């Protein structure tokens, strides 16, 4: 029921009494950083014309705005000299570990989603959403295949006057490695471990779609709904997001450079190999 804080010598993150991440403190300055999961219900179209297609493998088309998963998150806190973690349970099918390693200046989110319940006959598309106080004025950035960052503006296209009929999916873009936003004071970057859809639907907030389960084919391909199963249940997906948050200041290395190095490390990780050494003593091995 009380606030919980984990951290290291660079940063601290706090969780409010409902169990949600709420603030991040760096160099003694505390900023709002909230994270939660929401979901969109998949639209069910008659597939007769383009504008009336169901949400499916080729299309993201929500039916209305997001739904919240819970108002209360259960927490379990683990603190130690190497890593501090908060194990969050949002629901039976959404959990997450928020961790801060002793020598890292980013926050790691290991999310796990599924089996997505569809007893109500409604497909669902699960999103992890981050909120900050940054006045980003509708501007955000998404990467192009892990390289150049493309400038995106909500409800806008650079080369024509767009009139978005789909206010949510019309603002979604492919995010292969990173999505970011900033204002003159703050910058938030979220690195992902696999290609996901992402957007910034309100100033200061970023979201990435982590898992989907849909029940109707979208008539664009193989006449099969995107409803992946494993062992007879809906597929469980587990993955990571890495959050780099900080003051927007002309330091060297710049925040973007730090994100770049982190991106290389997490997307081109070390290969791990294991060997059973049996009766070999350490001294012999050394």
């Amino acid at each position, binding site marked *: 029921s009380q606030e919980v804080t984990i951290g290291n010598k660079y940063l601290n993150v706090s969780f409010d009494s409902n169990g949600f991440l709420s603030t991040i403190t760096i160099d003694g300055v505390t900023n709002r950083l909230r994270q939660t999961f929401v979901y969109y219900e998949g639209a069910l179209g008659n597939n007769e014309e383009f504008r009336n297609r169901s949400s499916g*493998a*080729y299309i993201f088309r929500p039916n209305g705005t997001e739904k919240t998963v819970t108002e209360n998150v259960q927490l*379990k806190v*683990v603190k*130690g*000299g*190497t*890593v501090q*973690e908060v*194990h969050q*349970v949002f629901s039976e099918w959404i*959990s997450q*570990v928020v961790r801060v*390693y*002793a*020598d*890292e200046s980013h926050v790691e989110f290991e999310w*796990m989603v599924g089996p997505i319940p569809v007893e109500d006959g409604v497909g669902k598309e699960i999103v992890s959403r981050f909120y900050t106080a940054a006045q980003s004025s509708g501007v955000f950035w998404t990467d192009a295949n892990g390289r150049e960052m493309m400038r995106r503006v909500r409800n806008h296209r650079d080369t024509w006057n767009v009139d978005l009929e789909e206010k949510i999916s019309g603002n979604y873009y492919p995010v292969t490695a990173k999505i970011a936003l900033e204002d003159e004071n703050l910058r938030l970057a979220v690195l992902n471990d696999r290609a996901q859809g992402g957007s910034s639907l309100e100033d200061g907030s970023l979201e990435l779609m982590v898992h989907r389960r849909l029940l109707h084919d979208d008539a*664009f*391909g*193989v006449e*099969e709904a*995107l*409803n*992946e*199963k*494993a*062992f007879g*249940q809906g597929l*469980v997906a*587990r*993955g990571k997001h890495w959050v780099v948050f900080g003051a927007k200041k002309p330091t060297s290395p710049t925040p973007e450079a730090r994100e770049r190095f982190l991106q*290389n*490390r997490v997307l*081109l*990780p*070390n*290969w*791990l*190999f*294991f*060997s*059973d*050494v*049996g009766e*070999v003593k*350490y001294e*012999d*091995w*050394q």
Partner: protein
Amino acid sequence: EPHLNMLREAMGVMQHHDAITGTEKQHVANDYARMLNRAVRACGANTKAALNQIHPTTDIPQYTFAFESCHLLNVSKCELTETKDSFTVTLYNPLAHAGHEYVRLPVTGGRYIVRDYRNVEVSSQIVPIPQSVLNLSYRFSNATSELVFLANELPPLGFKSYFVTRAIDSLDDFLHEAPAPASPPAADQTLAKQQETAQWH
């Protein structure tokens, strides 16, 4: 070469936009996963051979190490680290600059000593695996915790090994060592059967 060709062929098939975006039928997606899994496992032989060439123990023939991979670390499962009392972890750094990584190894509890090649003990921490991961019905793992330690000064395009030993803290630990898993009675036969099926999948 035949192992590498298997991976080349799999990656050739995966150029199709279906393989990248997941717009194929479910059974095709499963076949893509099967193809990739089979090819990556086959190339385990190549990485083993390469590491045994550059790893200094090759001049002591009985020490050619196996260099196994654990492909299910993302769901905190690794047969070798869960069952062995002493093992080595070798990290190969594919980047052109020195790196570091917090290593997380699924274990069945207890205390471990992690040493690098200079006999320097590396501080480590045992962290419980989240209950929601333990509840995953098809994980088939005895691990309840993860051993976490910092592997640093990983040389560019190079490797570094750590020697991990389960510490027998006290006679009490020794006397109450986790009993070897008994042969599964009939009731667990289904579990063993599922495990075998799961391995195949």
